[in-house]
């Protein structure tokens, strides 16, 4: 059974969004998503400075089975990307909620987070 954490919000498209102390939001994919994808071999990171809208495709994760788009869970500007994924994409498999984060954005409106699912609701949506 895939792991879900209570400290963050989730999109139905399997991204998590974690509000940090400095008001920025860190984004990655869920444990459930990485299990489905299998061994990741490549991550196409967004560009720092890129403006993204809620639901925009902004990154691609590629496993041996499939290449899948990552959609930004909220609107904002990309302020950091996890460059270490370029050499170690498997970090997403090993640590999806921590070392396997994909990008950080400065949200336009952090209240957009409220529109996302909490851990329980995400688990329910996955179980369906």
């Amino acid at each position, binding site marked *: 059974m895939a792991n879900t954490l209570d400290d963050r919000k989730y999109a139905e498209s399997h991204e998590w969004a974690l509000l940090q102390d400095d008001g920025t939001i860190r984004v990655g994919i869920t444990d459930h998503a990485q299990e489905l994808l299998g061994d990741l*071999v*490549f991550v*196409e990171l967004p*560009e720092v400075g890129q403006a993204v809208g809620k639901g925009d495709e902004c990154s691609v994760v*590629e*496993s*041996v*089975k*499939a*290449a899948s*788009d990552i959609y930004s869970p909220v609107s904002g500007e990309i302020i950091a990307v996890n460059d270490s994924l370029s050499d170690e994409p498997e970090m997403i498999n090993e640590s999806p909620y921590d070392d396997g984060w994909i990008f950080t954005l400065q949200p336009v409106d952090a209240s957009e987070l409220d529109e996302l699912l909490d851990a329980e609701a995400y688990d329910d949506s996955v179980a369906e």
Partner: protein
Amino acid sequence: MPFIPHSEQDIKEMLSTIGVNSIEDLFDEIPESLRCKDLASIPTGLSEMDVTRLMRDRAAQDGLPLCFLGAGAYEHHIPAAVWEITTRGEFYSAYTPYQAEASQGTLQLLYEYQSMMASLTAMDVSNASLYDGASALAEAVLMAVRANRKSKSKKILMPRTVNPVYRKVTEAIVKNQAIELVEVPYDPVTGQTDKVALEKFSGEDFAALVIPQPNFFGVIEDVDALAQWAVDNKMLSIAVVNPMALALLKPPGEWAEDGVDIVCGEGQPLGAPLASGGPYFGFMCCKQKHVRQMPGRIIGRTTDLDGKEGFTLTLQAREQHIRRSKATSNICTNQGLLVTAATIYMSLLGPEGLKKVALNSHQNTQALSQRLQKIKGIEPVFTGASFHESVLKLDTNIEITIEKLAHDHHILGGYDLAKDYPELENTLLVCATETRTTADIEQYATVLESLL
């Protein structure tokens, strides 16, 4: 059971099952105005004997003209072994096999082909081929727009010295994706891409610059300067090259400081005969960092569970059977048979053989151009150095001259450049590959002189 699908009885039963009266009723949704009534202009079938006779007669009408025509497709000598081996049953399939890994021989051949192309272009990777040179350039443009994520623009700088057919095909393929091709003029003196005109685009946001080598006029471009200009202006560079020329010229992977990003072109000079325009094949190579944006199939070498060498399709996750509408391209096939011929051609000739072909073609064209310039009324047009084509201005109606050469003397005299470059009136693009002899050149010159 005889293999006769859809007997009258079958059709009747199927229609009655779904409650429809006639097959015609299945097409009700298509408005009357869009239907083609009948196919009256299509003749009834012919027997094999009749078709063979018809095609033989048609082929005979072409005759065996003496060819001084290039302009994108070139008559090179193809050793007999090339097509003897290519048409062996084991190779004689022009398609990527569906159960790909079961066909280790085909995959190994494609892997060898990719290795040869990567070596010839000095690039990191090659795909297993595309349809032809023109569609390869279109795919390269689409790829550059995807790969240049620093650029917000969907604009491409396209020199007018790029093969006009390639430009038209590219336009047709990319325009519906809102990609704009912006023309760069050529220098009327040298025949090279005009660097002063190019400089006016400096600082503007473009996804990529296309660099032909040699260009459509046969002229050698200042590729180092062009590739460096692209880097300085934060665009990718796409080389569209004649692979034969690379046997002599600096490969695109070594242009400027770090080489170009994408190389594409027409593979016909490598073992494919001239045949009314095809089938030929396109090739594409790129830097490792762009490999996930490269369209087409890529074959990799690996080891199996027992540690034995094996070949496999690789990087499939970006292809359309997995990625659907988000695939890098809707290219799902390649020109396997032509690639087989090219691989055998390159294997038989080797780097030295290719170099000899390229050098002889260059020298023969030099000899042809100089010989024709001795005729009163024929002048060279460009000062730029050329590979194996030359541009000459005639003081007579060139359309009629080409027609007379072909009809009365069985000589394909060259390409009328005014068709694509209205400013180059009565201007002929000629080519003499390694297959032309001194006597051929003399014959052409004598006949042409008599027509002027």
